[in-house]
């Protein structure tokens, strides 16, 4: 069963076409990476899929529900960890978790919060105000918050951007643990991240979905030495 289906998904900002006729079918429990250069349309696609912005044309179906007619039902079963850390700065880590549990109307709030504290090892920073945490911790908290409603679909927009290598590896471990249980859509600029974590990869270029496949398939298709070269070849249409 498909978790996400888009049909001719298009977004225009005045004359600029940010996303052009994108057709996607993402399987339940799949970790799908969306790659592309800056301005390729990845973030705009994620914002449309998560109901934050309305497409200019085309359709989005999430778990067989139409985004046009059932946006709030869809929003209840998905969650997003945005590109920049999105936490309330003057609230403690625990208060942030409690607040977001309230936003989603979680019934067994304490149980869920304790689960996340354990899963993300947040014990030592629980009482600290979010704004006092390091970038790595803030990102970790941001991702923990995005699991508060046990989402069926999770959007991770460049989750490891700006993190040091250890913090990045720690987050990879967390993301890997989600595989199979939750449909994860990941955008990233790091090729090794997409190659290592994802089941399939979609490459976007100039608002178009240039190709979909696995890292191995892309390497074979382009005859490149590695995935990075394969990506460059596809993203530039073979010009580089």
């Amino acid at each position, binding site marked *: 069963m498909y978790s996400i289906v888009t049909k001719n998904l298009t977004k225009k900002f005045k004359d600029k076409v*940010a996303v052009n006729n994108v057709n996607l079918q993402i399987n339940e429990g799949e970790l799908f990476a969306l790659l592309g250069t800056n301005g390729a349309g990845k973030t*705009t696609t994620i914002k449309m899929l998560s109901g*934050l912005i309305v497409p200019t044309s085309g359709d989005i179906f999430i778990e067989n529900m139409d985004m046009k007619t059932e946006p709030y039902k869809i*929003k209840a079963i998905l969650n997003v960890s945005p590109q920049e850390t999105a936490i309330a700065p*003057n609230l403690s880590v625990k*208060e942030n978790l409690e*607040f977001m549990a309230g936003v989603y109307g979680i019934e067994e709030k304490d149980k869920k919060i304790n689960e996340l504290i354990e899963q993300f090892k947040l014990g030592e920073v629980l009482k600290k105000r979010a704004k006092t945490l390091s970038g790595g911790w803030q990102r970790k908290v941001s991702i923990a918050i995005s699991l508060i409603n046990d989402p069926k679909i999770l959007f991770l927009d460049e989750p490891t951007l700006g993190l040091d290598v250890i913090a990045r590896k720690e987050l990879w471990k967390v993301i890997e643990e989600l595989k199979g249980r939750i449909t994860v859509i990941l955008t990233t600029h790091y090729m090794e991240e997409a190659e290592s974590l994802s089941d399939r990869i979609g490459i976007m270029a100039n608002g178009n979905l240039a190709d979909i496949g696995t890292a191995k398939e892309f390497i074979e298709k382009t005859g490149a030495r590695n995935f990075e070269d394969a990506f460059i070849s596809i993203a530039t249409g073979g010009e580089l």
Partner: protein
Amino acid sequence: MRILNFSKRNLKELIRDPISLIFEIVLPVFLLFIFKQFNIPAENYRLENFTPGIIVFGFSFITLFTATLIAKDRTSSFLIRLGTSPMKPADFILGYILSLIPIIFFQNVVFFAVAAALGLKLTVNALYTVIVSIAVSVLYISLGILIGSLVSEKGTGGLGSIVVQLVCFTSGMYFPKDQVGGVFAYICECLPFEGSLNIIRAVLNNDTALVSAKNIIVFAVYTVVVTAAAIIVFKKKMVSDNKG
């Protein structure tokens, strides 16, 4: 429940910012105290007239810090996260408005306590004033939401300061508009600050002659228009901030 949950978060954000508390409460209290010491022989500075002025002056900082909170939320991706949650636009607006009510209530209690200590005779009208001033504050909160939706965090400082100055000079808290007259008096009548002060003065003094029908109409029109504009602009900006 979502509204209350969101307003609780907003309240925590606001009260944990010591600068906002200094401007919203300490500065107005200081002015109330210091002007009493000056013993200025003018109607405006009698405690029953100056205390409502201080209340409205405190509201202008509510506008400033509401605007700052919203602009911060917009730029920090926090609203992106909430925009993808099941929260509806009304939850956001009401959540912001409700979070300010306890601060306004607390402001009023502190202002009246200090005014009483300085010699204001407290009657049941003070209680009515608290209730009416909470209703009046909707204009100032909505104005904050509107400014915070329109400009960046840096911009809120500038626009918020303009509101503070306008309240000081056009509300009549320091001097009556007729003392200057002409175009200035006309501007005062066209802005809602004089109306908001006169409404509060009329309630505290139990004297309807202190407020004109024009005051009430101008204030009501501004409140409806600014609140509607705040809702529309906030909704629009939640989408337009997320281009790209």
